[in-house]
């Protein structure tokens, strides 16, 4: 799914009338790499377009056209009479705040004229590799606690709190393993939802909880694609309806698979929905 979205006016600085084609190639690839990584870290389309254009213009392009889809980003860069168009595939969309901030900082450094296109490309690739992440056990634990806290906001009673936290943590740990094995995200959503809600039901009912249904749903709330749902709306509001719609459809699909996992657990464990 693609959309034509941006025409950047000619840069003020001096344009080279006959640039080396490999120079345009390097500019396009550096801009695309930044755009691809921003998409994968959960940035809105407007930010992706703005930063890609900024990178290309900072390297001397006087014409930049972009279109962003859910699975790829395309760019046309031009200087003088020469233009080239390149496409780059976008990987799975996630949320990675620190990588996003690192990329935005890199764009600022490019804008200041401190880097060449090749250096910028290498730095962007390096950022993906070197950005620090929390240890997986901590992410699992925090996700479990977040699910239980979310459950309290939904009316989960105290006996159900620890079982939901444990079930959410186990679910997130399994999710991380499956993501590393490149299993389909929708299959992961259904499988983890089934596992977490089953564990939550077994734990909460043994702990004497009177809100087993809430516990089952609360234990899978780390799977709910909240950021993509908000991005979908922002993209549509900011003039990128195609990408916004694609994101919205993915959100609905994910919710359906999550609900299927929970429903299967309810049927197998004999819980009334």
């Amino acid at each position, binding site marked *: 799914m693609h959309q034509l979205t941006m025409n950047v006016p000619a840069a003020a600085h001096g344009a080279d009338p006959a640039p080396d084609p490999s120079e345009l190639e390097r500019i396009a690839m550096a801009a695309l790499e930044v755009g691809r990584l921003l998409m994968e870290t959960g940035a809105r389309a407007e*930010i992706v377009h703005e930063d890609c254009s900024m990178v290309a213009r900072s390297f001397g392009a006087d014409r930049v056209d972009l279109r962003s889809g859910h699975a790829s980003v395309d760019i046309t860069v031009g200087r003088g009479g020469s233009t080239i168009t390149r496409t780059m595939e976008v990987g799975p969309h996630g949320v990675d705040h*620190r990588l996003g901030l690192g990329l935005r900082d890199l764009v600022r450094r490019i804008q200041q004229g401190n880097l060449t296109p090749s250096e910028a490309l290498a730095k962007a690739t390096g950022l993906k590799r070197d950005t620090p992440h929390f240890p997986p056990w901590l992410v699992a634990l925090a996700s479990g606690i977040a699910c239980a806290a979310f459950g309290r906001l939904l009316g989960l009673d105290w006996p159900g709190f620890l079982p939901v936290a444990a079930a959410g943590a186990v679910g997130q740990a399994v999710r991380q393993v499956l993501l590393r094995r490149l299993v389909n995200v929708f299959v992961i959503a259904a499988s983890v939802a089934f596992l977490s809600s089953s564990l939550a039901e077994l734990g909460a009912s043994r702990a004497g909880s009177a809100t087993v249904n809430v516990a089952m749903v609360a234990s899978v709330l780390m799977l709910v694609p909240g950021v993509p749902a908000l991005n979908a709306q922002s993209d549509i509001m900011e003039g990128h309806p195609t990408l916004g719609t694609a994101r919205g459809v993915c959100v609905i699909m994910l*919710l359906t698979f999550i609900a299927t996992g929970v429903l299967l657990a309810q049927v197998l464990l004999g819980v009334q929905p």
Partner: protein
Amino acid sequence: MTIDALYLLHQALFGAVAASGFGVLFNFGWRDLRWCAASGALALTTRTIAQDANWSLEAATFAAAAAVGCGGRLLRARLGIASNSLAVAGCIPMVPGFFAAQAIFGLFELTAPHLNDPGKIAMTTMEFSLRVIFTIGAIGAGLSIATHIFRSEVHD
């Protein structure tokens, strides 16, 4: 309007815990996690006060998202371009995942072979679906209003 202080504290506390837990999942840095917690607490406090004043869930959620979005903008000098992401993290505990699940369960139930009261199930499903749409819309609109009114040269 009478606010149960203990209930308000409960909502703020668990809003903060949920937002900072999701902050870890979204790879916010250690320094930013406290701001995620503050953002979640502000969102849930505002929403609870608004609901206590008999506002609907959707209107209260809109007010909460706008409050968090404006708070992020006010602290922009201190937080930099992370301010918008922190506002989003604070709103995550208000995303109606529970209603979404109930709406989809309702749709599944409507396709069962022998239904007792299909009209009632359809109405409940419709109600949950509309609440999901309006609540997500309220969060998005609340955050966007702050972003677009206090727009800066560089988006965040």
